[in-house]
C-alpha cells in the first residue's frame, strides 16, 4: 500500500476520501473530525484531492492594488488594529478623497494591475455620494482594472447612507464601477463570537441577507472566515456549512478566504499568533467542506509566503496577488513585514512547488498575455549576475514543466 494511503488509514479519515470520490457531501461531524486530526498530511492529501479535481495544478494569482479609503470606523471590533473611532483624538483618522484615491491608483499606471481591492472602516460621516464618486474616480484613473470593493458591512452602511434599500443602490454602484465584492466582515458566524468581539457590526443573519442581495443583483463576491481568536471548532464548521447553504441558493461566491487573526495591537493582543498548522488546516477544511465554491485562497500577507506556497498542496488554488499597499493587518506593525511580492516572486513560489501559475482578474477570468511578458522581463533583468546565480536558481527550480532552467530573478 502507498505510504500516503497507509497514513490516511491510520488517521481514521479514510471514509472521507470515499465521500470525495463519490461526490458525497461532508457533514458537520466530518468537519469536526477534519479540524481535530493531528495528521496534517492526511488532511492535506484529502484537501488536495478535492483541489486537483477542480483546479488541476493551477495556482491563480492577480496583479492587484489595495486601497483602504478610510480607517475611521464606529464598529470597534476587538480584533482590529486598523480602525480609529469617529470621536477619537489620536490624530490617526483619515479619509481619502476620491481624488486622492485616484492619485494613488495613478502611481501604479505602468503596472498591469487587474484588480483594485478597496475596503475600509464604517465611517458614518461619509455620504452616499462619496462612495459613487470614489468608484467613478478610481475607475476613471484605471478603466482597465476591475474594482472589487466593500465588505458586506460597508454595503449595509452605504444603503443606510443612501436611505434606500441595498437592492436599489447596487445597480448604481455597479454603474459607477463596482465589479465584485470581497466578502469580508463575515468573521465567524456565531452569535456568541459576534456578541463578544464585534457586537456593533451587522449580525450574522444580516451579513447573509446582504450577501444574498448582492448575488441577486448579479454581483459575485468572495466569502471570508476570521479564525485564530476565540472561536471554537464547532463554530467554524457551522460557519462553513452556513456559507455552503447560501452558495447552494445563490452560487455567487467565487472564493473562500480564511483570514488568520493577527492579535498585534488589538484588544486581543494576549492571544498567540496563528500557527502554520492552523493556517494549513483552515485552508484544507474549507476546501473539503465548501464543495460548491470554486476557489480557496492562501492569503500570503497573513500566513507568510512560505506557508502560502505549501498551501497550494493543502487545498488552496489561489495566492491572491501582488498586493501593492496593504494596511489593515499590521497597521501599526513593524516595517519589516514585507507587504509586496513581485509577480516574478509569485510565479516562482508556484512553480517551485510544482504548480502552474495562472494570472486572473478579479472575476477569475484567465489572462494569458502579460504573464509571458513578465517572464521575459525577469530573464532580461537578471543581467550580468546570471552566471553566478545560475546554480542557485537551478537548485531551487525542481519540477517546473519547463525543461530549461530559468535565469535568476533578482529582487527589484
Amino acid at each position, binding site marked *: 500500500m502507498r*505510504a500516503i494511503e497507509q497514513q490516511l488509514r491510520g488517521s481514521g479519515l479514510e471514509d472521507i476520501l470515499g465521500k470525495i470520490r463519490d461526490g458525497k457531501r461532508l457533514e458537520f461531524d466530518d468537519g469536526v473530525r477534519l479540524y481535530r486530526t493531528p495528521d496534517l498530511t492526511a488532511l492535506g492529501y484529502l484537501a488536495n484531492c478535492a483541489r486537483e479535481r477542480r483546479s488541476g495544478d493551477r495556482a491563480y494569482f492577480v496583479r492587484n492594488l489595495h486601497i483602504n479609503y478610510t480607517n475611521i470606523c464606529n464598529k470597534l471590533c476587538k480584533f482590529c488594529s486598523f480602525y480609529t473611532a469617529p470621536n477619537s483624538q489620536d490624530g490617526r483618522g483619515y479619509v481619502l478623497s476620491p481624488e486622492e484615491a485616484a492619485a494613488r491608483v495613478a502611481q501604479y499606471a505602468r503596472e498591469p494591475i487587474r484588480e483594485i481591492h478597496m475596503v475600509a472602516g464604517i465611517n458614518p460621516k461619509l455620504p452616499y455620494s462619496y462612495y459613487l464618486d470614489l468608484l467613478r474616480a478610481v475607475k476613471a484613473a484605471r478603466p482597465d482594472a476591475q474594482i472589487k470593493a466593500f465588505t458586506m458591512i460597508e454595503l449595509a452602511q452605504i444603503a443606510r447612507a443612501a436611505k434606500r434599500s441595498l437592492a436599489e443602490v447596487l445597480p448604481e454602484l455597479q454603474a459607477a464601477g463596482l465589479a465584485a465584492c470581497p466578502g469580508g466582515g463575515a468573521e465567524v458566524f456565531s452569535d456568541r463570537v459576534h456578541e463578544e468581539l464585534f457586537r456593533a457590526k451587522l449580525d450574522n443573519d444580516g451579513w447573509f441577507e446582504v450577501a444574498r442581495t448582492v448575488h441577486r443583483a448579479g454581483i459575485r463576491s468572495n466569502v471570508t472566515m476570521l479564525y485564530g481568536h476565540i472561536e471554537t471548532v464547532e463554530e467554524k464548521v457551522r460557519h462553513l456549512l452556513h456559507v455552503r447553504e447560501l452558495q447552494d441558493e445563490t452560487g455567487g461566491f467565487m472564493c473562500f478566504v480564511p483570514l488568520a487573526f493577527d492579535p498585534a495591537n488589538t484588544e486581543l493582543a494576549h492571544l498567540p499568533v496563528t500557527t*502554520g498548522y492552523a493556517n494549513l488546516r483552515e485552508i484544507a477544511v474549507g476546501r473539503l467542506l465548501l464543495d460548491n465554491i470554486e476557489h480557496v485562497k492562501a492569503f500570503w500577507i497573513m500566513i*507568510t509566503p512560505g506557508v502560502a506556497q505549501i498551501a497550494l*498542496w493543502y487545498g488552496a488554488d489561489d495566492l491572491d496577488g501582488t498586493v501593492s499597499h496593504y494596511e489593515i493587518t499590521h497597521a501599526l506593525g513593524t516595517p519589516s513585514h514585507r507587504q509586496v511580492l513581485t509577480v516574478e516572486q509569485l510565479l516562482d513560489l508556484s512553480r517551485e512547488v510544482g504548480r502552474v501559475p495562472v494570472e486572473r482578474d478579479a472575476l477569475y477570468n484567465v489572462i494569458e498575455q502579460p504573464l509571458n511578458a513578465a517572464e521575459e522581463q525577469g530573464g532580461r533583468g537578471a543581467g550580468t549576475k546570471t552566471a553566478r546565480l545560475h546554480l*542557485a536558481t537551478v537548485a531551487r527550480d*525542481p519540477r517546473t514543466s519547463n525543461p530549461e532552467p530559468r535565469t535568476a530573478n*533578482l529582487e527589484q
Partner: protein
Amino acid sequence: MTGTLDHIEARITAGERLSFDDGVRLFREANPLQLSAWANLVRFRLHPERRVTYVVGRVINYTNVCWVQCKFCNFYRLPGQDGGYVLPQETIFAKIEELLRLGGTEILIQGGVNPALKLEYFEGLFRAIKSRYPIHIHGLSPVEIIYLAKLSHLSEGDCLARLQAAGLDSIPGAGAEILAEAVREEIAPYKNSADAWLNLMRTAHRLGIGSSATMMYGSVESIEQRVEHLVRVRDLQDETGGFRAFIPWSFQPEGTHLGDVKRASGFDYLRTVAVSRLMLDNLPNIQSSWLTQGPKLGQIGLQYGVNDMGSTILEENVVSEESVFMVPLPEIERLIKDAGFTPARRNTKYELLPAA
C-alpha cells in the same frame, strides 16, 4: 509528478537505503505530500511516540573576531577592525547563570576564528565554567578547532583531547555549509575543506566527543551538491556513529556579500528537511531551524521529518538580524502541542529530562 517515484517509495517502505540518484530525484520530482508522508514514515519508525524534544540552552558567541571572511556571514570583524570583541569571563558566567535560572542544561559556545585566542584560553575558560556550573559545553565548530590546532602546533586529535580534558563535551555541526569543494571555494574560499571538516568530526567521534551536523543550503549550490553533502555525512556516520542530529538551515542573504542570492522558499526548506530525513537513515534526529524559517514553517517541519526543536538559544548574533526569528520557550512548547505532539525536554545527548 507521475508514478515514477514508485521504486523510491518501495525502498522507503521496506527500510532500504536510498542512493544518491534517489536523493536527487526526491528533490526534483517529489511533491510536498509525498515528501511529508515518506518522511513521517521514517520519522515514526525511528521515534514511534508522538513526542517532540527540545533542549534548554543558549548561544554564547565568545568572540566575533575572525579572519575567514565567509561571504555568507554578517557577524565577523577582521582582526584589528573596529567593533571586534572577546567576551570577558564574567560576561560568559552571567549568561550561564541566567540560563541555569531557566533550568537550562547546555551552552553553545561558538565564535569567530580569532588568532589571538590560543588553546590555553579555551582550556582556562572551559575549566573555569566546569568548576563553577553543572552545564554541558557544546562548543567550537570544526573550523575553530582546526585552526586552534594549527595555531598551537598540535595534531587535531591532541588538541581535541586537551579541550575534552578541560571540559568540552560535544561539538556543534556548524561550518559544514555544503560539503562539496566547488561550493566552499565560492562562498568560503579561506575556510577549511569539506574533507577537513569531516576529518575533524571523525577524530572527535573517535575520542567520544559527539556532535551534530548542519547543512547551509540555498546559496550557490546545486541539488546534486546538496545530496553529495547528505551522502558524505551518512558515510561518516556509518563509520563513527557520532552524529546525534542533522540540522538543515537556509542561507540568509540579507546583509552578506551574497546579498543578491534569492532567499530560499518555504517549500525548499520542507523538501530539504524531508530528503535529509529520508537519506540519513543512520542519523537519529532531525532538528528544526525555526530560527531561519520562523515558527510557522518550523512547526510544519514536524510533518516533514523533524522530531526535535533544537535549543532555545536565547540569543542569536551570527545570521543577519532582519532575517532571524526568536521563539521563546513557551511558544516552542505551544507549537509542539498545537501540532499534536507532546513536548519533552532533553539534554545534549538526547536523553529525556523530567519536566521542569
